[in-house]
């Protein structure tokens, strides 16, 4: 049924001059399970968006290179074209309607109909539904995967594992499905459900469907895939037969040293005093759930928190600031801290730079000076003055403070009355820093400080954070998806995987160890595997 190879030939993509994909070559054969792995921002999702002709690609100037099927340009301009070419996707977030039955979900917008008198007059949409035929089709698709759930049950209330299978059933029910993309399909599954799913994927491949399997779990990739392609920073790094490569090697290729940010050396002197202890912290932040983490923070250190997207690293800082429902014990300077009371936390000297600068960090339609002063005014009653019976904002104090911050932090703006919405990403981040500094914090939580900021400004922000720790004695917890920047300024790095602390690493540990631990391998095993891999590499070099 399937004789064309899916090829990406020299595919590249730019977003407003910024290259996110560069000359990718990759092919997927019929019946093959091809794993695709890479860190966040490596280009996996952009590549898949190109494959599916998503509007986000074509409304931003399209892409370079070609996507070929069976040696011919597939010309996929929109998701419908992709469907016609027999390409399907099983989404990480289920695209199912809970109130519909399994059959209705499988057949959504592809319902089987028969014409009636009305439809002859008023058009095809008036054709009536053939429930029985639809159910038969749904049954067939479910049977293909060995699912024995009834096709007329409502999706609402099904276990997540079953929902995943309904998603897959929908794709394989599409006539002439030739390639199927799985995006992190096991992220939400239990162990036994995962087994079941991997078996189903093998079965599909055996029927000649080409599978693209995107996952961060190295063990699954090793067990399931025939070949693996590794992307890093929008570039193709390697494609290997899976049997010829180890998890450690994949990890090393995936992490690499993307950009070397110089680490001005030596270990910083960090006091033994624990400024904060966190015990069994759980945070219900959708998409970044934290499932029980425990760690200490020492006064004056820069603690890094790393890990892949969706693993929960962002949830920690957000949870400590009470932005989402939290349980667990936290102490700050020896006293218990009720993190759900954001106001208290701020008062006691913890400040937060959110990963969502525009959504949480700033009032985009207000001026720089107001943004910088606002939180300090609300929390510490700064910048207020008495006028008669009223306590009003002290405009002069606000301006002086803002002007000082602009000078100290080198914020580039026309004046302090400019709206923050008009600033560049780097300068917005500096305004956020200014806002936090106005609070005189002892502990600063910084999430993704360089996200969406160009390379030159990145360095400035990182230097600024380092200065805060070194010169002002501030303690910093920095959460970032970019290992390189964590390793350039942090004293320790916690790796978060699946909502838990996978282990603590030194900034000087090897790429393999970082890569393996982000994929859920324990520290000991990661160290061992990495050591072996290095030895092997060394041996090969010697031999």
């Amino acid at each position, binding site marked *: 049924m399937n004789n064309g190879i899916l090829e990406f030939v020299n595919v590249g993509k730019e977003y407003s001059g910024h290259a996110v994909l560069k000359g990718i070559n990759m092919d997927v054969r019929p019946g093959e399970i091809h794993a695709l792995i890479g860190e966040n921002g490596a280009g996996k999702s952009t590549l898949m968006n190109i494959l599916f002709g998503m509007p986000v690609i074509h409304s931003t100037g399209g892409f370079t290179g070609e996507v070929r099927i069976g040696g011919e340009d597939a010309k996929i301009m929109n*998701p*419908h074209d992709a*469907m016609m070419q027999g390409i399907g996707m099983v989404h990480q977030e289920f*695209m*199912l*309607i*809970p*109130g*519909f039955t399994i*059959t*209705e979900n499988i057949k*959504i*917008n592809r*319902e089987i*109909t028969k014409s009636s008198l*009305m*439809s002859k007059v008023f058009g*095809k*949409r*008036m*054709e*009536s*539904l053939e*429930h*029985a035929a639809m*159910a038969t089709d749904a049954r067939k698709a479910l049977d293909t995967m060995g699912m024995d759930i*009834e*096709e*007329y049950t409502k999706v609402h209330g099904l276990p997540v594992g079953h929902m995943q299978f309904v998603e897959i059933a929908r794709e394989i029910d599409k006539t002439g499905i030739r390639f199927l993309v799985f995006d992190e399909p096991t992220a939400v599954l239990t162990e036994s459900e995962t087994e079941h799913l991997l078996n189903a994927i093998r079965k599909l491949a055996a029927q000649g469907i080409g599978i693209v399997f995107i996952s961060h779990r190295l063990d699954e990739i090793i067990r399931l895939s025939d070949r693996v392609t590794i992307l890093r920073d929008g570039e193709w790094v390697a494609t290997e037969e899976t049997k010829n490569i180890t998890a450690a090697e994949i990890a090393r290729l995936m992490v690499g040293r993307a950009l070397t940010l110089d680490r001005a050396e030596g270990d910083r002197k960090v006091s033994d005093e624990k400024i904060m202890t966190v015990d069994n912290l*759980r*945070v*219900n932040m*959708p998409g970044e*759930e*934290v*499932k*029980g983490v425990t760690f200490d923070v020492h006064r004056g250190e820069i603690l890094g928190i790393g890990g892949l997207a969706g693993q929960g690293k962002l949830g920690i800082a957000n949870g400590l600031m009470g932005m*989402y*429902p*939290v*349980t667990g014990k936290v102490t700050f300077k020896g006293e218990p801290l009720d993190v759900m009371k954001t106001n208290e936390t701020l008062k006691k000297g913890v400040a937060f730079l959110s990963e969502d600068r525009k959504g949480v960090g700033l009032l985009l339609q207000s001026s720089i000076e107001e943004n910088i002063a606002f939180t300090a005014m609300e929390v510490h009653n700064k910048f207020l003055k008495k006028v008669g019976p009223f306590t009003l904002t002290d405009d002069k104090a606000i301006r002086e403070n803002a002007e000082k911050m602009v000078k100290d932090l080198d914020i580039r703006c026309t004046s302090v009355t400019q709206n923050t919405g008009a600033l560049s990403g780097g300068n917005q981040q500096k305004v956020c820093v200014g806002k936090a500094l106005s609070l005189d914090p002892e502990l600063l939580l910084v999430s993704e400080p360089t996200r969406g900021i160009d390379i030159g400004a990145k360095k400035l922000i990182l230097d600024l954070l380092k200065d805060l720790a070194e010169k002002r004695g501030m303690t910093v917890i920095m959460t970032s998806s970019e290992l390189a920047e964590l390793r350039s300024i942090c004293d320790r790095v916690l790796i978060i995987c699946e909502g838990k602390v996978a282990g603590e690493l030194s900034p000087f540990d090897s790429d393999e160890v970082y890569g393996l631990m982000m994929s859920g391998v324990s520290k000991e095993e990661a160290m061992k595997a990495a050591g072996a891999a290095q030895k092997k590499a060394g041996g090969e070099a010697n031999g």
Partner: protein
Amino acid sequence: MNDMMKKLTGDSSFDLGNWVLDNIVTIIFWVFIILGMLTAKDLSLNGFFTELCNRFYRNAFLILSLIIPVIAGLGLNFGIVVGAIAGQLAIIAVRYWGINSELVGGTAFGGLGGLLLMFVIALPIAAIIGWLTGTLYNKTKGQEMIASLIVGYFGNGVYQFIVLFLIGAVIPVAAAHPMILYDGVGIRMSVDMGSTTYALDNLLQIPFVPFMIAAAAFVLLFVLWNQFIRKPKVEGQSYKMNPLKFWVYVILAAGVLAYFVMQLMTGGPMNDVRQVPVVLMLVIAALAIFNQWIMNTKLGQDFRSCGMNQTIAEANGINVDRTRVIATVISTVLAAWGMIIYLQNMGTLNTYTAHNNVGYFSVAAILVGGASVDKATIGQAVTGCLLFHAMFILSPEIGKAVFGQAALGEYFRTFMVYGVIGLSLGLYVWRANKRAKLAMPKEDEE
């Protein structure tokens, strides 16, 4: 109590508190009506039922026109007011010609023919207006209900501009025509429906009691057939009702059957209730069947998909905006026809006010039947219509009986109209917000 209900309904997830919240408005109305029946002593039973039936025939069609937008995810379409306006424009046009013909002793444009012509003329007007409002709803996604309310007001302004000014000033009309104001510009305060009055109502009528006996017998037989004989179309599916529901239906139907048989035999007051307009009932039934039928087409399935989740519908290639516009057009056209049916029963069109309360009353009625922002059925529309109008008739009676003031009852029923809408919508949003609220993190599930 809860456990008992679980057993009776055969539904293990049954929760009494949720059930009460789901049906709070319906419960309030039942209580009110039962109390009302007990307190309003001078109420004559046949008078009450005559009035109730009259109101049912008048309003049922309008209320049924609300169902499709609900299913398509637009919420309650207060904008059926503009549909009603389309119907009134058609009435004005046809009556203008009709009176012209009557003046020279003719009967053209009168009676059933005139009424059908009104339907025909209303169709394109309502379709265009529906298309415009549907497009507007697409631009105000998430705020459709307040938008539909304001659309009604806006449409009222435009309508008044047309009938008060354009007719006469721009559209040439005979200044001496009895429908036209004295200075030759604008339509008068009220337009007589002339021979189109009762054109549908009077077509074929049968006495109330035999009708009720037949209806109750039919329901009883249907329920029994449904429970014991009916074979599902798709294997595994079941049409069976839960035991509680089944017995409630059986007992109610049997009770009604017995009561009306008694009435027939003893010649009780029910025999004086106004006759049932069979054709009109058939028209209402036809609309109910149409609603049911369309839900079983591709278009109906698309309505449901859009109503359940626009994002997923869009991702699967359904043109959500277009589907929503179609839903609005259907609703608007049905409302226009509903208004014509309403007015042929009333006999007079109050040119400037008739449409004003159509939106509130219809929406309140369907909510009373147990519908909400995202679900509405024919059964809810019918029960809602009956309950709501029973309240409407009883309120002044209760006001008189309890407080000695009928006016108090009238204010009270206005309060019920707005209160019902506010309460239902408020509860809906409150519960949705509560569900969307993030839960506290759970301890390990392993």
